[in-house]
């Protein structure tokens, strides 16, 4: 099974402070990794995805950034948080399939960030 470690579970940060959320995954090497944000009552917004070490694709231009320093480590950062950065942040991994069948995404438990 695929295990995703994501921490912390909850976080309260003042506006203008920095942010670092870390996600580490276990299991098969070279997974696709993702960061999502979900506002209250809303859908999942894809923020970043990575298909390999050092390879980051950004979906939403904003004050967030992501890095993948190791194969199974994905970090979400911000230099200065905004009130609008509040939300539920989820890390996910997706394993590429050579056969094209029965592959799925696995999600971490999420971090609830409140910017005050």
């Amino acid at each position, binding site marked *: 099974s695929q295990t995703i470690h994501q921490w912390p579970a909850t976080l309260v940060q003042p506006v203008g402070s920095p942010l670092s959320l870390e996600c580490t995954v276990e299991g098969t090497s070279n997974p*696709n990794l993702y960061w999502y944000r979900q506002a209250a009552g809303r859908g999942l917004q894809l923020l970043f*995805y990575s*298909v390999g070490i050092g390879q980051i694709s950004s979906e939403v231009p904003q004050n967030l950034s992501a890095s993948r320093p190791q194969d199974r480590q994905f970090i979400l950062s911000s230099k200065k948080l905004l009130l609008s950065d509040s939300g539920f942040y989820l890390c996910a991994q997706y394993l590429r*399939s050579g056969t*094209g069948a029965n592959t799925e995404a696995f999600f*971490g438990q*999420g971090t609830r960030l409140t910017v005050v």
Partner: protein
Amino acid sequence: LAKTTQPISMDSYEGQEVNITCSHNNIATNDYITWYQQFPSQGPRFIIQGYKTKVTNEVASLFIPADRKSSTLSLPRVSLSDTAVYYCLVGDTYTGFQKLVFGTGTRLLVSP
């Protein structure tokens, strides 16, 4: 990735069968159809995946017509614990759903 369209919300009662349909008119030959379930304050979890015809597992069935332009997730005899948001995704699993974009999903509310 093929764009998907689902109803925003559905209501049901315990014990009823619920069918949620997803439209994906631009589905490609190599695309699979995958459904996820999300409870509040949790990440989505995989329910079922299929390519064509019918797929059944212990929690749901997935019906895919011959033209594959839509799919229907069927939940038999729902219970209160099936209240959740259900997402339909369409993509090529060989390339790993690289962008893995979730739509707005269908919010299912099951009442007593």
